[in-house]
């Protein structure tokens, strides 16, 4: 468990955060610019002196109650920022070795090869940072942090300075790192697409406060302050490819938690592999009875958990629990009224489109 209790006051800004974060997976700190997410990250690293307590499992990095403050250079963490702060006077290899040679015996004894391979930077080792592209620099920065064998990786908008193409170049490496290493990551971002694609746990921040936090799928399916994804409310679900139907070029995706399987276009992902899905509220409709004649391929039996007003006064947002999966459906308030929808009511959710996010 990563437990944080941090407060910091500046003239025009204050931060107040109490959080328990899971010890594995990627936790996203998400919020608008200036909401304090970077300050919180810096305080975890000890780069910013906040008041309170920071503990990573049994290790206490800061505890004002016992006047304990471990300086940044003695915290086993990795830190990656927007503009990779690679040392310009050192080669890529020397950059990678800089942290590793100063880290514990395990890091010093370990070969650089796995990290170099993971980030695909083998061909860059002899180069100088100035000759690298933005995406390459970011990959070297991530590798440099990983080479110290950190117990926590902090990433501050590592993709924000890159254009869409470079972003697409780096993102798969972060996902690989996520799937291949059991390393907790705290990831600051103001781009919800990135968060939806990478995060397992989401912390919503605004004005220096934590608004809410929880597993990504729950947070995306919140009715109060739904997290808009590309301007659209929708849920993000983790699933396993169950089977592939060669005849119709479809794949069955079994959502984590059981009781919910969705058919989607086959993207060639092998059965057993994990995928992340995105289901927009506008692509989900609701019926009280199963519809015998419809083009919608996914009809799922579920139960209404709640109904809320949507942004437009003519629309309502309905949350339906299908097995382990929360879904959001957007309908007109007139339809909701006509069907007599209410919390607790069993309904059929019809899912028209399931988008597969690369994982």
């Amino acid at each position: 468990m990563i437990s944080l209790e941090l407060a910091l006051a500046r003239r025009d800004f204050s931060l107040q955060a109490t959080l328990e974060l899971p010890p594995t997976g990627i936790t996203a700190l998400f919020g608008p610019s200036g909401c304090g997410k970077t300050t919180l990250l810096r305080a975890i690293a000890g780069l910013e002196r906040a008041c309170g307590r920071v503990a990573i499992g049994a290790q206490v990095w800061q505890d004002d109650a016992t006047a304990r403050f471990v300086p940044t250079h003695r915290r086993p963490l990795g830190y990656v920022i927007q503009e990779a702060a690679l040392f310009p006077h050192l080669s890529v290899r020397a950059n990678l070795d800089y942290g590793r040679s100063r880290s514990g015996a395990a890091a010093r004894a370990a070969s650089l090869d796995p990290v170099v391979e993971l980030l695909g930077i083998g061909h860059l080792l002899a180069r100088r940072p100035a000759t690298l592209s933005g995406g390459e620099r970011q990959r070297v920065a991530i590798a440099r942090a990983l080479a110290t064998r950190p117990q926590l990786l902090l990433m501050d908008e590592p993709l924000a300075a890159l254009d869409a193409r470079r972003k697409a170049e780096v993102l798969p490496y972060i996902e690989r790192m996520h799937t291949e290493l059991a390393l907790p990551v705290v990831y600051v971002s103001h781009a919800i697409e990135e968060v939806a694609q990478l995060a397992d746990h989401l912390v919503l921040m605004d004005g220096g406060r934590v608004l809410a936090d929880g597993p990504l799928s729950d947070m995306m399916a919140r009715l109060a302050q739904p997290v808009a994804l590309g301007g659209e409310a929708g849920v993000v679900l983790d699933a396993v490819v169950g089977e592939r139907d060669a005849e119709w070029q479809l794949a069955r995706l079994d959502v984590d938690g059981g009781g919910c399987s969705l058919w989607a276009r086959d993207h060639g992902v092998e059965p057993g592999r994990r995928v992340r899905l995105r289901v927009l509220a506008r692509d989900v409709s609701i019926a009280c009875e199963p519809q015998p004649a419809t083009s919608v391929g996914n009809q799922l039996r579920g139960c209404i958990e709640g109904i809320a007003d949507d942004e437009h006064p003519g629309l309502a947002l309905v949350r339906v629990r299908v097995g382990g999966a929360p879904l959001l459906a957007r309908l007109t308030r007139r339809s909701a009224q006509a069907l007599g929808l209410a919390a607790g009511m069993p309904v059929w959710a019809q899912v028209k489109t399931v988008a597969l996010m690369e994982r």
Partner: protein
Amino acid sequence: MTAEDWVAVRLTAQLAGLTTVLLLIVGTPLAWWLSRTRSRLKPFASSVVALPLVLPPSVLGFYLLLLMGPQGPVGQLTQALGIGRLPFTFGGLVVASVLYSLPFVVQPLQLSFEAIPARALEAAATLRAAPWDSFFTVALPLARPGLLTASVLGFAHTVGEFGVVLMIGGNIPDRTRVLSVAVYEHVEAIEFADAHRLAAGMVVFAMLVLVTLYVVNRPAHEARGAAS
């Protein structure tokens, strides 16, 4: 050139070399502190460092004479320590030169330290480098152009000083008669040919040093342009 002139050349080189080494030792931590501090003392400290730039050398020399003289606090200290009196000795020249050339070493160093982004040092800290460690492995290498400029300017400015040297060192052959004073001597004695030899040599030396400095410290993109 006369044997005496060669002695002056040797003495000048010794004085400038020793002064530069001492200035780097003293000036580097001072410049680092000035570049990082938020102390209220900073404007005061910066002004003291910059004083030799604006004061006439004679003013500096006058007060140094008083300080290091038999009745001055520094003079009493050196006498108590058994070093003796500093004025009109090579040691006195070194002390005066260090003070007089201080801004030429501290200011370029401070500028290059200030140009190092905070994130570079923070990155070093997140890579387990203690502050001392990151100073030597990140800050100093990144400040290399500043170090070079500081060394060259410190050396060259010490070679070129005249007023302070004359007041503190006088004109004692083999002990305090440096090049600039030797040129003055030759001119006073109407030995223009000798004066020329020394003066022209100094012009060539200064030119060589400065051209080397500007070539070495050229921004990387200009250097590449010239190479291709």
